[in-house]
């Protein structure tokens, strides 16, 4: 049995700044918790809230475009909403939701009791929340929400406020807010990497790691190296706007394309930061619901790593129309085509996983299959973009909007929903309702395609993106109307999901510990897992270790249930599950003697310093700087001298 090690000692005379919080339940415990599972749930809830907000923004945009010359929104409002829709869905929904899954699952999947730095983990969450609230506060103060588009091209965004290109402080909020979110996501990336590299259970070699953990590791490295680049670019934007520098001022001889190069050097890896976790989730779900191992595990892993590497060499395909010259453009066209290869390999391996399996079409599986189908369509329109001359017709039109929604909605969001249905029983010990789930899936598939499929064509018909209105007589009216209807079908679908979560959390069918007859370590723990995850750190002997405790293969390669596992057909398994196999719940210890890190106030305090400094930066309020710095330094100092675990 693991006990706390000797590195944590009780200091003889420690400065008692605040009494150490002890409660692990109740309202206030959420502010001080450092339990990776609680933090994961906090990430998830917050990110889903932002998902709904971003979705409402999308509905408003679609209502405005339901017919020609819409008047629901003013041009200024429309520009704020599409900027915030993009910013929200990428920085406040996509990334943190992936982090939510990673937080909850990585330690469970590798057989660890927590992440490597529990308090840093809490700080990452609070930083993300503060950053999100900070950006959204611009709707109420500062004259305008961000209104320069989610990639905020200079010199539109970087020209000082007084010179008229963009009204309001929106661009300042945007630049400072994303830097803040960057700090938060960098800390969580470091945390994930150290956790995966250091805390794997004995025997959990790299090639035995679940694919989701693998993809989160690649994602964390991409985050680690991409965020500093955009941070630098946004600091330059901030200085241009507020300190009189000339980084992107063409009149001073600067080249605005410097910004685009920096931004997309971050921005394209960012696309993979968003999609790789989704790929990881479906790589978990497909084998479980096909009752077969993932086809070509090493190939799936290495193609994920390859995508992570090649992802750094394709950034200029966002800039094919900027006049880079034919040589550079051809090079980036080729690299873009090359990255399609590992992506295609993944798709084929997923298909081969399903092939000759025993496919249970539960909601989680439906979403995973939907992911393959929709993501493939997004990938194919992506290949069309690598055909540069065609791209010059399609870029910055609704064709591109269709493309990246197929990748990020059809890909990421379908993957995330698959993950919700798959892991929800682990979080709450209850299933999400299957009937509502199927409604959720089919309406989402329908609404999604109704919204985004016509966008391909409206784009080819010449409709540029980011336009708050369009004239009639261009053949766009009907297709736009369809898209708006589709958007509301999606909204209905998400509503069904929210209802499902609310109801099933308390009243759903009880699931037991291993309801899906799954393969990975998280299913060996009770549902929900105790604070310490594993009473005894597992010994890992194989990839899909848990599965091999339940099944063996006969001479023809078919799975055979081991005698210790109940030989009940999965479909007919009684509600409540049997916990499955020798890792069953009864054998868990009571957790006495396992010392877990104690809760702490200071991650929250440090994160509180960020928005104070942020407001100081946006409004150039020098008097706020010492206050913010004081909060930050106090929090960090107290954190530094506070021991990891209260004796």
């Amino acid at each position: 049995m693991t006990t706390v090690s000797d590195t944590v000692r009780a200091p003889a005379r420690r400065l008692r700044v605040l009494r150490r919080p002890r409660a692990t339940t109740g309202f206030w415990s959420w502010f001080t918790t450092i339990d990776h599972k609680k933090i994961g749930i906090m990430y998830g809830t917050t990110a889903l809230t932002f998902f709904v907000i971003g979705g409402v923004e999308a509905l408003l945009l679609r209502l405005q475009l339901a017919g020609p010359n819409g008047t629901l929104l003013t041009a200024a409002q429309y520009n704020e909403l599409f900027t915030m829709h993009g910013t929200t869905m990428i920085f406040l929904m996509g990334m943190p939701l992936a982090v939510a899954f990673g937080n909850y699952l990585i330690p469970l999947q590798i057989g660890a009791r927590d992440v490597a730095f529990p308090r840093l983990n809490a700080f990452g969450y609070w930083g993300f929340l503060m950053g999100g609230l900070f950006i959204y506060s611009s709707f109420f103060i500062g004259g305008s929400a961000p209104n320069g588009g989610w990639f905020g091209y200079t010199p539109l965004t970087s020209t000082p406020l007084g010179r008229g290109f963009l009204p309001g402080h929106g661009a300042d909020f945007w630049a400072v807010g994303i830097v803040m979110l960057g700090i938060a996501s960098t800390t969580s990336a470091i945390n994930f990497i150290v956790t995966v590299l250091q805390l794997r259970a004995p025997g959990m070699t790299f090639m035995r790691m679940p694919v989701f953990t693998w993809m989160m590791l690649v994602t964390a490295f991409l985050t680690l190296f991409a965020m500093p680049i955009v941070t630098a670019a946004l600091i330059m934007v901030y200085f241009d706007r507020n300190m009189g520098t000339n980084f992107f001022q063409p009149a001073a001889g600067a080249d605005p394309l410097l910004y685009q190069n920096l931004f997309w050097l971050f921005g394209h890896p960012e696309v993979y930061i968003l999609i790789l976790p989704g790929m990881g989730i479906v790589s978990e779900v497909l084998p479980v619901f096909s009752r077969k191992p993932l086809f070509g595990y090493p190939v799936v892993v290495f193609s994920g790593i390859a995508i992570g590497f090649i992802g750094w060499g394709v950034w200029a395909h966002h800039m094919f129309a900027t006049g880079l010259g034919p040589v550079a453009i051809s090079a980036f066209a080729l690299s873009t085509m090359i990255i399609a290869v590992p992506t295609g390999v993944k798709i084929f391996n997923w298909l081969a996983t399903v092939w000759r399996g025993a496919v249970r079409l539960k909601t989680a599986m439906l979403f995973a299959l939907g992911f393959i189908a929709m993501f493939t369509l997004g990938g194919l329109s992506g290949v069309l973009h690598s055909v540069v001359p065609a791209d010059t017709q399609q870029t910055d039109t609704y064709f591109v909007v269709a493309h990246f929604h197929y990748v990020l909605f059809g890909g990421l969001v379908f993957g995330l929903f698959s993950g919700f249905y798959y892991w929800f029983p682990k979080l709450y010990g209850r299933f999400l309702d299957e009937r509502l789930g199927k409604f959720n899936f089919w309406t989402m598939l329908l609404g999604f395609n109704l919204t985004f499929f016509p966008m391909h064509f409206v784009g080819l018909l010449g409709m540029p993106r980011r336009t708050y209105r369009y004239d009639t007589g261009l053949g766009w009216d009907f297709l736009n109307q369809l898209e708006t209807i589709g958007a509301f079908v999606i909204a209905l679908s998400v509503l069904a999901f929210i209802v499902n979560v609310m109801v099933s959390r308390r009243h759903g069918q009880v699931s037991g510990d291993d309801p899906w007859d799954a393969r990975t370590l998280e299913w060996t723990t009770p549902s929900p897992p105790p604070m310490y995850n594993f009473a005894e750190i597992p010994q890992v002997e194989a990839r899909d270790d848990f599965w091999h405790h339940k099944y063996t293969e006969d001479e023809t390669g078919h799975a055979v249930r081991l005698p210790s596992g109940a030989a009940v057909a999965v479909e007919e398994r009684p509600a409540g599950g049997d916990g499955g196999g020798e890792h069953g719940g009864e054998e868990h210890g009571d957790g006495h003697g396992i010392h877990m890190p104690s809760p702490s106030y200071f991650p929250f305090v440090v994160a509180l310093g960020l928005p104070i400094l942020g407001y100081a930066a946006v409004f150039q309020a020098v008097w706020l700087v010492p206050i913010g710095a004081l909060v930050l330094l106090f929090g960090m100092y107290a954190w530094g001298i506070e021991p990891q675990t209260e004796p």
Partner: protein
Amino acid sequence: MTTDQVAVPSEHDVVEAGHDAPATGMGVSNTKLAMWLFLSSDCLFFGAFISAYLFYRGRPQPGPHPVDVYNIPFTSVTSFILLMSSLTMVLALAAIMRGDYRRLRVWLLATALFGATFIGGQVFEFTEFYRQGFTLSKNLSGSTFFVLTGLHGAHVTAGIIWLLSLWGLAVQGRLTSRDSERVEIAGLYWHFVDVVWIVIFTVVYLIPK
């Protein structure tokens, strides 16, 4: 990024399993690994600013140009002092590892003071440049130069605060040889900042064409 400065004593204890299965860690402590990761991330941060500087170097722009205002001998001296602080940092680590707390305090303080001297030199240099008309908003070189070197200065300043808090702990006797890793990690950061300065000094000052 500053959160990494509050690196806590190694937290890998949560996973220590008493089995004799193959080891799965990387053979370094969590905190040290985290610092290396942070520094690799920070490399790209400085890389972006250095790229911006190089990208704009030689573009037509109004004077005064950096070459007109540089005082290479002066900056060489402050650079040398910063480099020396890396030496004292190493001495501080050596001191704590062998339990020589008096020298630990001396070398920690010396490192912080050398760093502060460098910052003092930078402040003087910036003031001098402004007096000669080379400013943040004067031209592209001014923008890229001041923001790059200024952010490096901010890194050094954060390092000084970190060293001083370690020194404070050492004075109170709360930094013992069991905590040598805390000094080592601060040292990693400090050496990184020095190495970045060597790059900046070479690229920005010594090859200014």
